[in-house]
């Protein structure tokens, strides 16, 4: 017959061990979850920094190309035009020769205009010099040269208010992307850009009266699609958020806000 003390002591030891196991499981699991979340935060931060660096490299490359186009090709073309003007003045006034030379001169003018346009699109100098409202207004006016869509721009707030250059550039690129999407896909007639700067709350709204789209279906498309991943990636860098309001045949309204606008300097 087993001693009752054996049973009671054994029972006590088993209960203590059971208590230890349960407490250990709770404590260890909590620590593991915290560690997992910490690693995920670090990964997200790393991805954000990677994206920021990638975008900075892209912008730097664009700047270099714009500089090369403007300094080298633009300068060469300008010199060519000057030389040609001088040559033109020395020609006999034969009608055919004059016509040909006029055509060449027109072509040179057009080439110089294209180079300047490409350079401007690569690096929006208006944005750097005059800020976001001026740059968006210029972009809207320039894009209105095509017959497909009428683009209007509205603004409220302090036009001298400047966001950090990185933030302004990201917002400008996002607006470019959204307007290009509207021009390509909306099949609408009007696009309106509304920008609000402090002292009001910052907000940028771009809306069109086109055919709208199914947001969930678009997200499933592989890149480039509507470039939504690119837009949202840029917003993550500047701590912004985006809201899409769209439906079939009801146009599209995209609202962009910046979190912690007061902390951005």
């Amino acid at each position, binding site marked *: *017959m*087993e001693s*009752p003390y*054996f*049973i009671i002591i*054994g*029972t006590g030891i*088993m*209960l203590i*061990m*059971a*208590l230890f*196991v*349960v407490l250990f*499981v*709770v404590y*260890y*699991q*909590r620590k*593991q*979850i915290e560690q*997992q979340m910490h690693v995920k935060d670090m990964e997200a931060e790393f991805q954000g920094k990677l994206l920021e660096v990638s975008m900075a490299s892209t912008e730097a490359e664009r700047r270099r190309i714009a500089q090369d186009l403007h300094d080298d090709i633009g300068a060469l073309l300008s010199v060519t035009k000057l030389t040609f003007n001088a040559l033109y003045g020395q020609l006999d006034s034969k009608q055919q020769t004059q016509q040909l030379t006029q055509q060449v001169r027109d072509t040179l003018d057009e080439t110089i205009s294209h180079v300047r346009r490409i350079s401007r699109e690569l690096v929006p100098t208006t944005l750097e010099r005059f800020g976001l409202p001026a740059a968006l207004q210029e972009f809207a006016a320039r894009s209105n040269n095509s017959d497909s869509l009428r683009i209007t721009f509205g603004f409220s707030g302090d036009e001298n208010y400047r966001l950090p250059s990185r933030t302004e550039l990201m917002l400008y690129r996002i607006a470019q992307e959204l307007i290009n999407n509207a021009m390509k896909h909306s099949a609408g007639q009007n696009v309106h850009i509304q920008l609000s700067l402090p002292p009001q709350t910052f907000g940028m709204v771009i809306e069109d009266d086109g055919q709208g789209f199914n947001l969930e279906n678009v997200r499933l498309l592989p890149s480039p699609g509507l470039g939504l991943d690119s837009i949202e990636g840029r917003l993550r860098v500047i701590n912004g958020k985006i809201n899409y309001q769209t439906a079939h045949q009801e146009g599209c309204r995209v609202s962009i806000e910046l979190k912690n606008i007061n902390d951005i300097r």
Partner: protein
Amino acid sequence: MWEFNLARTADISILLPIIIFFVRGRLHVPLTYKLIYSIVFLLFVRNITTFILGELGIYNVYIYNWYNLIGSIIVGLLYYHLFENQYLKGFAILTICITVIAALFDYESLFNPATTNFNRFSYNISGCLEIILILIYFYQLLQGLLVPNLAKFSPFWFSAGALFYFSGTIFSYISINSTFNDLDVRSQYWAIDAFLSIIFNVFLAISVWYIKPVKVDN
């Protein structure tokens, strides 16, 4: 006298999870949660039945023996569904088979309503196997890290309560012929079982509280 009061308290404590079940009333739940409900109701039926039979002076030990067998099968099925590894699922089924076979070794304790003996094999073997199943499940919880907050996870509370109960009673069951099957000392060990039953029922109540329904697609 205090052993009697403790035993009655243990019998009544099963009402805690029952009341919570009726208060929360979640029926669209996964199978694992339904198995936890089954254990609660099985315990309730056992306590009610043995109480009534006891009051009527009718032998009721065989009810406890059947409860142990059926309860072990349900617990085995519960961990079968909780385990993700195929081999562990197979092990859970194996424990059910072993428990059934062990119980049938002392079939007289199951099929003789006048028996006064608790099943010599079923309690200790099923208790050991259930402790092993619970420890394996805890290991799976730590490996997978799929549950963000264990304190609000129903199967964790059930497993913790079951671990305390089976760990605390394992030595009593291993020496069952000297403990529960010895009428002279039965009441002493019954007190340990009753105390641990109260703890188990409290953990069961918390487990039922944290049972979440599945989303039903319309």
